[in-house]
């Protein structure tokens, strides 16, 4: 099962590098995504099978792995379907940089598809690893295989974003390596046999770990993986990479990659809890969480680039995740639920942003306007996504953010709760002004367009075909985000019992209870 999760995308990725014709390569991408999802479904069904470890105890699928694997797999499937149409269009039309109007070429599609699948393989490896050294290797590998994805559009802006991504994340990950070595010292400082960096051995021997070294190790690992996760103030690569990468890559970066880094932090946090240093790591997580939320909310206000706005929103939501874990208890469960909700919502928003970018040829929030009439479906998705991501009912993030708030109040952390609500409010106002401007619609027009989207052909029938600017929206570009939107809506109304149980157990696995 574990091998299927790793080898399906890895082998398919290698095949993609040698497949010359476009059609079979794109088909292979979708097939591999389906295969990966099937393997994840198998892991859900076969509880005993998934616990059986591979290569010693190095890899196994526990509840936390399964939650993050499911998110990654689902999002990748949506992105893969989207990619088929996207790559076909990219091949057909001449490309121009939206900012300066200069023409540019695309990086080889073979490499792009291959790296996309390798990206899935490395993220799966992060999720199933139970050895801290292996987790490090896998996280660094995700950086390296995703760098070419950001540079798919070969112009100077994407190049700049790629360089910053590579250097900042590599430096962060190097610090995490130092953290790993500190952890090795912590296992040996008390004398006695060194403990291997396997999670279960470390947890079992947690009482023997030297506290000073363990604290230093946690700090380095938090900063290192936090860079990758996009926690402020180490988030500086994130807005650039998310805004310059093709939208489906941004969706994967934001919805899947950041979560993988989060999982790495969760593993170390779980270790801190079992060593009796839970309060130390909780305080740090709350601190970084609040800082990320505050900083992101400032940058979302008056943001002139809608993909950057989404990127800062990711920084904000990573802050929420860290904060929820830092508070613990009910908020820890809320954090897990929020990881799911955020990924689905953000994936859908980035795919919708890709449609808007393709139609309007600009990322400027001032130029991409009147969306509900130009792109009825994507415009509606943009509206729904905005409502969902800012935590409005009846969507999933509302429920999880409320759970986290309740966790804070239960824990008696009123000051933190006030800061949390304040940041959420600022983000809501900031995004609302940008998004409503883009939709160019007072309330009654929104309802009208919502009507139009539910019966697609309706405008024509009613004789409103005179809409001159209406852009075509092919099925591939709207079905994946619509599916994600439906999932977000369902999760807002009803969390299925098996999922809720899985999230509870996942929170318990990483030491949150």
């Amino acid at each position: 099962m574990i091998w299927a999760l790793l080898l399906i995308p890895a082998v398919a990725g290698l095949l993609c590098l040698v497949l010359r014709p476009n059609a079979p390569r794109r088909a292979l991408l979708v097939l591999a995504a389906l295969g990966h999802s099937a393997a994840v479904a198998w892991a859900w069904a076969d509880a005993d099978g998934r616990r059986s470890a591979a290569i010693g105890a190095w890899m196994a699928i526990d509840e936390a792995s399964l939650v993050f694997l499911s998110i990654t797999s689902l999002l990748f499937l949506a992105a893969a379907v989207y990619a088929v149409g996207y790559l076909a269009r990219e091949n057909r039309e001449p490309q121009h940089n939206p900012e300066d109007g200069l023409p540019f070429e695309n990086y080889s599609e073979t490499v792009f598809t291959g790296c996309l699948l390798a990206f899935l393989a490395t993220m799966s490896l992060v999720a199933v690893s139970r050895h801290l050294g292996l987790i490090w290797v896998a996280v660094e590998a995700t950086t390296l295989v995703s760098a070419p994805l950001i540079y798919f559009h070969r112009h100077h802006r994407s190049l700049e974003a790629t360089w910053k991504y590579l250097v900042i994340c590599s430096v962060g990950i190097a610090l995490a390596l130092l953290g790993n070595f500190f952890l090795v010292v912590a296992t040996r400082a008390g004398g006695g046999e060194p403990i291997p960096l396997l999670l279960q051995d470390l947890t079992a021997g947690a009482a023997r770990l030297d506290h000073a070294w363990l604290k230093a190790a946690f700090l380095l690992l938090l900063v290192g993986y936090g860079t990758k996760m996009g926690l402020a103030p180490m988030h500086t690569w994130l807005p650039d990479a998310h805004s310059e990468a093709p939208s489906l890559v941004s969706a994967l970066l934001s919805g899947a990659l950041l979560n993988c880094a989060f999982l790495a932090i969760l593993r170390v946090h779980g270790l801190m809890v079992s060593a009796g240093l839970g309060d130390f790591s909780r305080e740090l997580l709350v601190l970084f969480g609040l800082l990320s939320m505050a900083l992101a909310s400032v940058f979302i206000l008056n943001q002139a680039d809608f993909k950057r706005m989404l990127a800062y929103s990711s920084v904000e939501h990573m802050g929420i995740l860290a904060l929820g874990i830092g508070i613990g208890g009910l908020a820890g469960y809320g954090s897990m639920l929020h990881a799911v909700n955020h990924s689905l919502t953000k994936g859908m928003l980035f795919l919708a942003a890709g449609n808007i970018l393709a139609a309007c040829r600009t990322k400027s929030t001032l130029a991409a306007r009147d969306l509900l009439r130009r792109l009825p479906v994507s415009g509606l998705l943009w509206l729904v996504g905005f409502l969902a991501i800012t935590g409005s009912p009846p969507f999933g993030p509302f429920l999880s953010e409320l759970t986290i708030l309740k966790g804070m109040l239960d824990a008696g952390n009123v000051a933190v709760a006030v800061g949390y609500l304040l940041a959420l409010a600022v983000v809501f106002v900031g995004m609302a002004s940008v998004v409503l401007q883009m939709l160019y619609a007072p309330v009654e027009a929104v309802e009208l367009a919502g009507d139009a989207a539910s019966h697609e052909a309706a405008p024509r029938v009613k004789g409103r075909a005179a809409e001159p600017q209406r852009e075509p929206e092919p099925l591939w570009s709207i079905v994946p985000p619509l599916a994600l939107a439906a999932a977000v809506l369902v999760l807002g109304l009803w969390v299925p019992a098996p999922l809720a149980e899985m999230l509870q157990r996942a929170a318990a696995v990483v030491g949150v209870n």
Partner: protein
Amino acid sequence: MLFWLDLVLVLLVLTNLRLLGSSRLASCIRTVAAQAVLLGVLPLVAHPHDVSLRVVALCLAGAAMKAGVLPWLLRRAVVSANVRSEVEPLVGFTTSLLLGIVLLGVAIHVAGQLPLPDDAGSPLLMPVALFTTVVGLFVIVSRVKAVMQALGYLAMENGVYAFGLAFAVHEPLLVEMGILLDVFVAVLVMGITIHHISREFEHIDTDRLSSLKD
């Protein structure tokens, strides 16, 4: 053997200072390569009773990669980019060197706060590893050329690795190989990116990569 270990560590400090004070790209590349050779020797002198075939093989592989292949890659990137061979620092060489001395002091102070387990070998080890890491970071933020940032990353990795080599010789082979592979691919991808930067901009000055900001 403590003498040899300390000698290697002091040489490491000197390579760091040279990296800070050197004005030519080529000599910076050579300096980082020399660092990698010193690292290859480090575990042999740190644990002379514990030298197995595996340790030797790993040291050889690491040194060959970091002192041979990667410098060659970076030198090629410099040549193909056809850039002037000056480092062009944002912080002057003298200031860099003085800051380097301060950083060394800070590293020694911080290392003093974290008592090492008994089998650490030399008390110099921890400060030198930290110093190398911090110098790498400083080079990344204070030098303009993309090649220098790749070198800074390598120096930083060397510092982390120095720490690891001296302590974690019991790390499983798989992890060691994974780390080596990741570093290799990281520098490879950076080299390719530098190549693209030079084609796109006709320079590799990262301070002019500034169109993305808020």
